[in-house]
């Protein structure tokens, strides 16, 4: 089967009375069973009915498609876990993507050699995207602006900044060393997939096992109680937007590395919807307090596989959008029934 699933073994039923599980198994809970079952059903369907499904080629295509969505989804899941939302992710991707080529090509300031340039070209744009995330967090935490509106500002202005910065021009580059971050292969799997898996595993672990992760969930679960228990609610909120910005920055770099070109008009366009859809389908509570990053990965895979299944069986891509809409409503509705 696919390597993504090998990394995520079958769920251990979260029966009460067992000691806290460690490692990857602990990140899977009862909540994943439904999502995972849907994914497996899709896989079985495809093995049976879709020609050429069980090939490395297919796997690679599908994983590459979800990579960017999942990477952004890691940050989005954290934001949603606090009860917020981040609409600006696509715009922040564009900013990071537009900024990077100018650095590693030495257009902004002289770089001593290619490798230093690439290192700076990766680090600085990601930091920049993080700073814009900080701006989002500042609005949400300090001014108590609703997250949807606070991040709407950069959704509108952020892409504009990237476009103004590059004058809207397509920046084509040929720097294979940089492009390795997307298309280089390790054990036959594209490097970006490894980045995605690393981010997913680290953040899923962090959400459970670090003080900060627990505080994020506590703030989303009951902000007032968290505040009274001495949790620095504002700082916690601020930081999730920074994380979301950093994830968007990384995703932006992967997109330009894949295309060997940066187009501020297109990088990350509309991705916020795909990401929110993946988070919702994955089982993260949109009102906050319960979040699963593995779920977001599964959610993205499900949406992608549905799309792939439909396409491979001759259904046009547009129809997949309608199916995706139905999936979102269904997933959120099921969540509601579950809680009631």
């Amino acid at each position: 089967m696919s390597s993504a699933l090998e990394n995520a073994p079958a769920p251990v039923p979260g029966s009460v009375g067992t000691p806290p599980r460690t490692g990857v198994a602990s990140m899977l809970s009862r909540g994943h069973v439904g999502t995972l079952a849907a994914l497996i059903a899709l896989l079985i369907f495809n093995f049976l009915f879709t020609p050429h499904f069980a090939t490395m080629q297919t796997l690679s295509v599908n994983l590459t498609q979800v990579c960017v969505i999942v990477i952004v989804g890691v940050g989005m899941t954290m934001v949603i876990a606090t009860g917020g939302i981040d609409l600006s992710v696509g715009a922040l991707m564009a900013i990071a993507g537009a900024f990077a080529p100018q650095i590693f090509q030495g257009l902004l300031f002289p770089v001593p050699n290619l490798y230093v340039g690439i290192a700076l070209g990766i680090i600085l744009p990601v930091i920049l995207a993080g700073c814009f995330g900080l701006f989002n967090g500042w609005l949400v935490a300090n001014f108590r602006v609703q997250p949807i509106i606070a991040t709407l500002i950069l959704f509108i202005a952020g892409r504009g900044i990237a476009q103004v910065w590059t004058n809207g021009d397509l920046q084509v580059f040929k720097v294979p060393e940089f492009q390795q971050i997307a298309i280089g292969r390790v054990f036959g799997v594209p490097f970006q997939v490894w980045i995605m898996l690393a981010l997913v595993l680290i953040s899923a672990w962090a959400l459970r096992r670090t003080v900060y992760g627990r505080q994020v969930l506590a703030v989303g679960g009951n902000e007032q109680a968290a505040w009274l228990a001495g949790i620095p609610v504002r700082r916690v909120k601020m930081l999730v937007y920074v994380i979301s910005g950093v994830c968007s920055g990384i995703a932006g770099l992967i997109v330009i590395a894949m295309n060997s070109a940066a187009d501020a008009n297109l990088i990350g366009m509309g991705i916020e919807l795909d990401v929110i859809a993946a988070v919702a389908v994955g089982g993260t509570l949109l009102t906050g307090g319960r979040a699963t990053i593995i779920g977001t990965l599964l959610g993205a895979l499900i949406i992608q596989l549905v799309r792939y299944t439909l396409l491979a069986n001759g259904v046009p891509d547009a129809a997949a959008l309608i199916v995706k809409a139905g999936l979102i409503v269904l997933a959120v509705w099921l969540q509601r029934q579950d809680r009631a």
Partner: protein
Amino acid sequence: MATAEPFLSMRGIDKSFGNIPALTGASLEVNEGEVMALIGQNGAGKSTMIKVLNGFCRKDAGGITFNGETWSASSPEMAQRGGVSTIFQEINLIPFRTVTENIYLGRELKNRFGLLDLRRMHDGARALLAEFDVDVDVRRPLGEFSTAIQQMVAIARAVSFESRLVIMDEPTSSLDEHEVAVLFETIRRLKAKRVAVVFVSHKLDELYAVCDRVTVMRDGRTVAVSPMSEMSKLQLVATMLGRDLAEVRRAGATAFTEGTRAIGEELLSVRDVAVGRRVHDASLSVRRGEIVGLAGLLGAGRTETARAIYGAGPHEKGEIRLLGKKTDFTEPVDAIRAGIGFCSEDRKHEGIIPGMSVRENLTLALLPALSRAGIVDEARQREIVLRFIKEIGIKCSSPEQRIRELSGGNQQKVLLARWLCMNPKLLILDEPTRGIDVGAKAEIQRLIRKLADDGLGVLMISSEIEEIVEGADRVFVLRDGRTTVELDGAAITEPAVMGAMAHGHGDVE
């Protein structure tokens, strides 16, 4: 007394939520043009009684007749149409909308084009409010006016439905003295119009000022009905708390035992603190190793004072000292760092994080100390969690069980453990045993005593008189936002505490 069927009669009312009974055979009778006081402690069942009457919830058993007919309202709206209006404690109007709209929402006047007849509505609103001596610009948003005006608008709205019975649920809790006077005038006018009023309040003076009779509820039952003038304040408080005056010196009813009384230095001193409208002049102190009770009727300002100490609410005046040093907490986290823990009276909304496990809830405040480089030390966490579950006797299937699945008593134990694992100097407990079954209650009381004996300072707010009398080493009584009495040792008796709650001084006469 007339023997005719009373105007409103509720008899043998049963109501339970889940399997917890809120009302058992409760009754309430009100005559036409009568102001009936309805009093009782938290959980006595008076709100449920009101909700059954106004259609907010359905009764399980019992009969209600109103104005000679069987009453069966199934929503507040239906009740209103049937002549019963409710003014809720939290003013349930829309602050952004104008005064006129708030009066006419849901039954707007239209002109012949089917559009709103604004002029007629404004005139109507103005005329209606004039009846209550309220003269405001009715075209302005309601939120621009004082709480008293808003309250009057709510009353005007209720009355304008041609109500025959008006229920007022703590209408004075946010009014100042003058505003209360205006409200009372309104009630007298309603009375003159033969409208019946059910008046819920915890301020005893008010009851005597405006009510004809009083119905006292306790534990879901109606325990006394009497003309207001035939019941003294002290009797009223005693009935409400379920204490027979003659029996007051009877043996203890709680699990508090005599402590070792190794009382140490002063931990906390609060002097002349004022908070908002509720607290005017509160003073108290807590020493190491003692339980200090903070008593008072509902709305006396106990919770507000506690929150001010904890940095969870601002205080305008006075000073708070911890170990002799003046504090300036702006956030709870400051207080926590200084060694204070706080359990809110609202366990559900301000205590537990329902979706999280017992383990996660228990270590919420301790997390920073439980971690190295931001990573939680799982082994230590597990050790601490298991230790407290065992020590305090938290009944859960495992530390991983979600806290919302636990009983109230066990939730409270987890919340206590949340602070105890921090090794605090001072613990503020706001109604620590509210809504907790008898067995768990005794366990929690025993635990609090033991903690104090081990050197912790405890400030305990409680509405249960025996909890205060038997549990506390010293007692401060708040009445209408002022500390009236400090009682110590043998001076802590039920009559003294109740007297202070009722009159503002500890003497019983």
